[in-house]
């Protein structure tokens, strides 16, 4: 009798869960690998903040669309003065923050001034540095004057760090974010999940979901069972590596491989011996077999790159043939550089799958030509301190996920330690050029210089691996910025 009870109970549970799955759904559980440290996109660099809140809870004057295009958002339209220095934004009317306060030009001035102010802890403060003044013309019009013309200004306003916040709630956004978006924040169970619900009276198009939960699942090992057991219905951007094989063939799921802005590079300390020697860097470039790295570190999904530029960008040139995989040539170059026996060096790896796995393969490949790498795994905090800030490293692997960031190679004191006046000249020219054809030409020059100098080991463009229930529609295929835009997401019947 007792046994029967258990069996019946189990059957009842199974039944209950299957009927629930058949009903038309308006809720979605998404798995994300990292938990945001807090929920204010204007006060932290963590991508996880934007992945939850961008376009869902917070909106900016402009926004970035699925293909990386700039779209109007809280600014309905704008005009740019002929000298390119004054932007006049016409704001949307009838927009309310989730706490019921009205959105108007004062909020825009407040947000932009706060982001560039002296006490700003905005992680991308540099984006706002070109702003000279922000003026409220009338409640629905804002005039922004720049110190000098800037081709990417509208794009920059679309970053998550530039979203509009209200003075009433700005201080408490970290805990209880209040924005103007289609979803409002409901709850945050720390370490477990963040729940958003549909906001009343949203100004934009109607949205299909009533509730969205972002569940924090730290690694692929846990994400796959969660997906297979139906606990989560979407892993919009998860570096799954080999685990992908388990769901690829399953008709219950859709696997969508898209692009990101992440150039994954073998960061090289160009200031440190022997990496300051071009021949050494060329030898490393020849020793690297991108195919093996892509297979082992990204489940075969990454796109090889030959310079620091995204392959889906129109200005991209394929430079992967600059230093083809050639072990003999690599050994030859090592000998010419005065290291016929090779040498020892360190490889510091941040705690992400592509770096840790890619690192093992790179180490194995460089061992073939006599470079003996000691692998040192570090946490992000250590990585930022040792590698990025103190530049105490030989080699590292990291994906630079900011869009269009080839200019980092011209930054003074950047952690690559690269300094090439010819390259800097190209970037300076680029900043002053607005003609598209000319810009493309300059981008190509820049890519070529970096490839020839073998500044870093250019490995692959990080793929965006998204998996979701076959019935879910409207999630982004690519990842032009770090976001999980849910405004168009719905369940097919």
């Amino acid at each position, binding site marked *: 009798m007792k046994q029967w009870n258990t069996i019946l109970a189990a059957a009842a549970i199974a039944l209950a869960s299957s009927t629930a799955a058949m009903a038309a759904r308006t809720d979605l559980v998404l798995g994300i690998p990292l938990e945001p440290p807090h929920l204010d996109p204007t006060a932290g660099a963590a991508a996880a903040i934007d992945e939850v809140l961008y376009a869902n809870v917070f909106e900016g004057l402009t926004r970035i669309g699925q293909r990386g295009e700039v779209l109007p958002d809280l600014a309905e339209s704008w005009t740019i003065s002929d000298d390119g220095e004054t932007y006049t934004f016409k704001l949307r009317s009838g927009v309310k923050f989730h706490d019921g306060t009205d959105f108007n030009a004062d909020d825009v001035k407040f947000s932009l001034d706060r982001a560039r102010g002296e006490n700003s802890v905005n992680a991308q403060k540099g984006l706002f540095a070109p702003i000279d003044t922000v003026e409220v013309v009338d409640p629905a019009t804002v005039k922004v004057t720049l110190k000098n013309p800037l081709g990417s200004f509208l794009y920059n306003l679309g970053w998550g760090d530039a979203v509009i916040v209200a003075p009433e709630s700005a201080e408490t956004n970290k805990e209880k974010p209040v924005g103007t978006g289609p979803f409002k924040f409901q709850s945050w169970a720390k370490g477990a999940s963040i729940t958003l619900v549909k906001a009343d009276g949203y100004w934009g198009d109607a949205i299909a979901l009533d509730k969205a939960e972002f569940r924090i699942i730290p690694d692929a*090992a846990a994400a796959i069972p969660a997906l297979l057991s139906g606990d989560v219905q979407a892993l919009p951007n998860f570096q799954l*590596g*080999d685990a992908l094989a388990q769901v690829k063939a399953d008709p219950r799921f859709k696997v969508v491989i898209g692009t990101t802005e992440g150039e994954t590079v073998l960061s090289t300390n160009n200031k440190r011996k022997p990496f300051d020697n071009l021949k050494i860097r060329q030898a490393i470039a020849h020793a690297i077999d991108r195919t093996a790295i892509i*297979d082992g570190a990204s489940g075969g999904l990454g796109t090889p790159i030959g310079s620091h530029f995204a392959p889906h960008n129109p200005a991209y040139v394929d430079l992967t043939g600059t230093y083809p995989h050639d072990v003999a040539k690599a050994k030859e170059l090592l000998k010419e550089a005065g290291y016929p026996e090779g040498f020892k060096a360190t490889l510091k790896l941040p705690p992400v799958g592509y770096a*840790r796995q890619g690192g093992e393969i790179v180490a*194995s490949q460089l061992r073939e030509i006599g470079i003996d790498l000691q692998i040192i795994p570090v946490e992000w905090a250590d990585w930022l301190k040792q590698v990025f800030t103190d530049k105490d490293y030989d080699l590292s692997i990291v994906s630079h996920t900011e869009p269009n960031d080839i200019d980092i190679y011209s930054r003074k004191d950047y952690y690559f330690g690269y300094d090439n006046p010819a390259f800097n000249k190209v970037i300076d020219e680029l900043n002053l050029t607005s003609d598209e054809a000319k810009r493309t030409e300059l981008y190509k020059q820049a890519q070529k210089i970096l490839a020839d100098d073998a500044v870093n080991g250019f490995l692959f463009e990080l793929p965006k691996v998204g998996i979701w229930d076959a019935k879910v529609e409207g999630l982004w295929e690519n990842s032009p910025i770090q976001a999980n835009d849910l405004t168009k997401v719905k369940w097919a019947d």
Partner: protein
Amino acid sequence: MSEAVHRKPETLGGFVGRALGNRSFVLGLLITLVVAVMALASFFWTPFDVTRLVVADRMQPPSSVHWFGTDHFGRDVLSMIMVGSRNSIAVALVAVGIGMGVGVPLGCWAAARGGWLDETVMRLNDLVFAFPALLSAVMITAVFGPSAINAIVAIGIFNIPVFARVARAGALAIWPREYILAARAAGKGQARITVEHILPNIANLLLVQGTIQFALGILAEAGLSYVGLGAQPPMPSWGRMLFDAQTVMMVAPWLALFPGCAILLTVLGLNLLGDGISDIFDPRARRRP
């Protein structure tokens, strides 16, 4: 328990015969020897080179070429288990060494001197015991960076109080014995008595505790490597192999199966060995049917 040494000893043959008659001991010794031989052999020969990644051969199921299949980098799993055993054994063994090396003198000293010194040593022991071992290991590796050496230190520190307690308890039971009193009357110092009379009599206790801590050390090392805080690549370790395997458990179950079995068998073998030794030395056990 410690009577064995001072009651007029049985013949060596009798002792060996008793040992061989103990099922736990024989089975445990057998498994332990197999693992030890595997670890030693890996220094001279493994079926494949574990530092060479052949990504093209990745995730091949067990076959006549790769008996245990290959992993996500195309490495031979059998070879990795062989080399990994070296790592497990080394970490656990050195950690036991640290625990014994520091803990036993401390425990004997405390037992010999008694009084406030004894109290202090035991309170320090409690202090270490009060720390959550795994969390502290995580903290230690956060400070010094993850590596096999730091895993050894982390595990070793928590072995110290264990051996100190066992040694002290064993020694305290022996100090009041008549032959110790006789030795003291003969003018022998505390240190000399400890070395000549106490240590031989608690050696069996320490040996048993040693095998237990050895087994626990292997489990702890596997756990630390599993969360990425143990041995670092390219050195294979069983815990890391399991971590790497779990994402592909459904397409490549052998990757999770073999390292898991390796840990289980090794720990099982050591525990059986410990039980066996304890049975052989424990006179009461001999009365058992």
